[in-house]
């Protein structure tokens, strides 16, 4: 049986048609069947999840009204802390580490009653765009097992695309949820910076990171974001906004919709099919949604990649300094002094991409270079923010392809970090500006690999983004499509 949408599953549990335990068992069975091939999960926690599912069923039996999404199994990227479970960040440096505390989003998920099925693979410390930088496992794209699922939240994307769970959480620092959503045919939503608490998310780029949902359709993504959003006294950077309600108005379409196409993100370096698909999407917005389309030029887009790799690596170099072997994780024994221990622990504990970024970031913050790099990057960031603001004076939303290419072969780009960095050009500006953006499935290339459309809005415009994304999804019907091989298995 195929997974239905999370909201549909939840409705059936609430109505007593199915039990949360049976749903969870299906999920665990799907993992057992598929994950040897896919490699989405780093750890599976069936027992605790079963207890959580049983608690939901007990509530249904007692006639209680369940919180939103109760009973829907969920997978969590392994850089988000869950009490009693390992947090590996897909790194050797955290070998053996079990978290003693819950991230704020996990508290919310547990309170609502979503059984946590397991922790998913990622690029080590969320640094990468293919999940190939995981020190622990290879994750394959359910649409083509020779291809990457994207990254860094590749495990969470593959878990949903492979129909092992209906929902998952990733983290998005420069596109780490939207790009794998695009490559795996899913919906991935990066909210406004500060909408979701980062407490308990292992920091990569503190001023860029946001925990973000993956789902099979827009409504499910909206429901999950609604559940995890809100001010958190434990995260000073969260916004003091009301708890959002996206579902009530989800089916409404804004009138006189004005959509902008970012000139700098249309054309150059794109796979021809992606360009073609994007042209179709523009036409769809015009003809089916009645939107007016205009081209917006933003000179701040090109410098964004350089600015991003300075800001993100600078913050990462500082955030990852705590992995020193003193208090937790792996400590490498040496005969030298404590600094020798630091060197050996960190040199052996971190993989090459993490090491590269720590060194880059350390260099950028070094005395004498700060202004030339970090200072300049902050100015580029401010300029980009201003240009987005100006753009939103002319249009309601902006669109562009999420990724310039569809999923590439495992190993294809691994030796070329620069081309990997450049492939994030459409997603990075969103994090630098702190604005929300969604990626929704927009079609398939010749080999049947999914493509994605990115919709960007001004700060706290999640509601409008969801409405438009929902309208497009209804026209295309690309949501909840299963990879052909999987659809066959399911049909049998």
């Amino acid at each position, binding site marked *: 049986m195929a997974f239905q949408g999370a909201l549909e599953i939840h409705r059936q549990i609430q109505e007593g048609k199915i039990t949360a335990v049976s749903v969870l068992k299906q999920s665990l069975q799907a993992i057992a069947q598929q994950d040897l091939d896919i490699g989405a999960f780093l750890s599976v926690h069936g027992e605790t999840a079963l207890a959580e599912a049983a608690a939901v069923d007990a509530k249904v039996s007692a006639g209680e009204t369940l919180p939103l999404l109760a009973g829907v199994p969920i997978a969590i990227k392994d850089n988000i802390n869950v009490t009693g479970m390992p947090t590996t960040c897909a790194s050797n440096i955290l070998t053996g580490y079990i978290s003693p505390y819950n991230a704020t989003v996990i508290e919310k998920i547990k309170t609502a009653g979503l059984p946590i099925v397991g922790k998913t693979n990622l690029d080590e410390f969320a640094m990468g765009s293919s999940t190939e930088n995981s020190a622990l496992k290879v994750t394959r794209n359910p649409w083509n097992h020779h291809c990457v699922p994207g990254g860094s939240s590749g495990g969470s994307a593959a878990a949903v695309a492979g129909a092992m769970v209906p929902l998952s959480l990733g983290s998005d620092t420069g596109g780490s949820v939207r790009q794998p959503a695009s490559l795996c045919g899913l919906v991935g939503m990066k909210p406004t910076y500060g909408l979701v608490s980062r*407490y308990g998310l292992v920091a990569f780029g503190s001023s860029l990171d946001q925990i973000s949902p993956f789902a099979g359709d827009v409504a499910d993504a909206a429901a999950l974001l609604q559940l995890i959003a809100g001010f958190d006294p434990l*995260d*000073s950077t969260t916004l003091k906004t009301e708890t959002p309600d996206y579902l009530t108005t989800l089916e409404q379409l804004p009138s006189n919709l004005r959509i902008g196409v970012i000139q700098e993100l249309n054309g150059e370096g794109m796979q021809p099919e992606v360009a073609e698909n994007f042209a179709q999407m523009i036409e769809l917005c015009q003809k089916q949604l009645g939107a007016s389309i205009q081209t917006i030029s933003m000179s701040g887009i090109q410098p964004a990649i350089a600015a991003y790799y300075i800001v993100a690596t600078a913050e990462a170099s500082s955030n990852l300094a705590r992995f020193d072997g003193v*208090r937790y994780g792996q400590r490498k024994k040496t005969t030298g002094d404590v600094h020798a221990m630091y060197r050996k622990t960190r040199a052996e504990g971190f993989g090459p991409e993490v090491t590269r970024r720590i060194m880059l970031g*350390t260099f950028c913050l070094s005395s004498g270079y700060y202004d030339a790099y970090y200072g300049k990057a902050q100015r580029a960031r401010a300029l980009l923010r201003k240009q987005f603001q100006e753009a939103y004076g002319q249009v309601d939303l902006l669109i562009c392809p999420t990724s310039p290419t569809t999923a590439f072969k495992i190993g294809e780009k691994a030796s070329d970090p620069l081309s990997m960095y450049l492939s994030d050009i459409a997603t990075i500006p969103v994090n630098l500006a702190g604005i929300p953006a969604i990626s929704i499935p927009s079609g398939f290339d010749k080999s049947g690999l999914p493509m994605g459309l990115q919709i960007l809005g001004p700060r706290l415009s999640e509601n409008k983004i969801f409405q438009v994304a929902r309208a497009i999804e209804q026209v295309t019907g690309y949501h909840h499509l299963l990879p052909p091989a999987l659809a066959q298995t399911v049909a049998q």
Partner: protein
Amino acid sequence: MTAVLSQTQYETVVGLEVHVQLKTASKLFCACANHFGDKPNQNTCPVCLALPGVLPVLNEQALNFAVRLGLALNCQIASRSKFDRKQYFYPDLPKAYQISQFDQPVCENGYLMLSNGKKVRILRAHMEEDAGKLVHSGADGLAGSDYSLVDLNRAGTPLVEIVSLPDISSGEEAQEYMTQIRNIVRYLDVCDGNLEEGSMRCDANVSIRPVGQIELGVKTEVKNMNSFKAVRRAVESEVERQIQLVESGQRVVQESRLWNDATGTTITMRSKEEAHDYRYFPEPDLRPLTLDPAWVESIRKELPQLPAQRLEKLTKTFGLSEYDAGILVEFKELGDFFEATAAICQNYKAITNWLMGDITAALKTEKWTLDQTKLTPQALAELINLVDATTISNAIAKKLLPELISAGGSPEALVKEKGMAQVSDEAAIRAMIQPILDANPQQLTDYRAGKDKLFGFFVGQVMKASQGAVNPEMLNQILKAMLAGP
């Protein structure tokens, strides 16, 4: 301080960096108790252990304390401030960075006035978190130890670092500057002000230059002074050392030096002295601070009386000597008691004498603080009034004090109850003297024959018989007359 060895006269130039540990209920960025003396790592949580994924949240009380301190140090309070990360690896620093303030401290441009009239300018006072503690086995430090244990109870304790400009010109001024800051933090009730226990710490940047030279000399940073006297001695010793070096044709090297109180010298710290690059950058986990001027004003209005204000009041309004006033300022409890008593008793000198004499002595013996006793300003005022009205003698008053301290009560009532009132009635005194004269005929004869010294004998006998309750002046007068004969 100046010293002359050769022809050159040298001038001492000192700037102090003072760390003040704020006695907030919880730590600077987490809810852990800000408390010492507990089991190692008892007061820790995911945040101050720097577990993966945690975030800091600023303690509002700590910000309030820092602003209070800044105002008391005559600083400007920034309307916008921010926190930065100061990065270095050390096992007592769990995040491998200290959240501090780099270029936008909460307080700037203050000053303190020394008693010699000199103004010591304060460059800045910024907030930061303390590190944990290391316990080494088999060595004094991390280097060479068999193993070292990490206690993070102190990690995250709020600190204010007060940085002065190099306006201090002697060890004595350095000591006074520190003492003033200690008094201020105690008056504000933001810190224990205890150098010995480390709730206040001080690093001195010391250099010398020939008198008249404008350019500053090479400075050394002297650490590890655990008392106010040590601050003075360390500065003086380091200045001596620098002068010796220069006089012998050598150079002062910029370095950190450790004060050794036992030997009275500073020694170079064996750190490798690699130039530290702390790679400061703005703390992305905390929003920049916006300090509402109205809020700052409300704190200013609620500031208690400060040491400088008390000193002026004690000397100008109450006419106390600089010395007496200084002691009453330094020991805030005594000062508070003085002011409360002075409000109801005008004999300020007597209040001072009582407080600094018998009362302090009694407290010392019993190891009490004033508020642990039953003595009240009302009682002290009454006691002084009884002496001034010659109802009791000073000797009787001193006898009453222990009971007032341990059991409390009203001196007037006690005097009545115990019949200790001083006898000032002439007839009564005569009636007391006569039996003494009758009982000692030989001594009386000897006195009348010219043995003047026996006068003291008769005074003693009367005092003994009356248990000291006779007005001493009247006794002298009447006794003299009666001894002289009818």
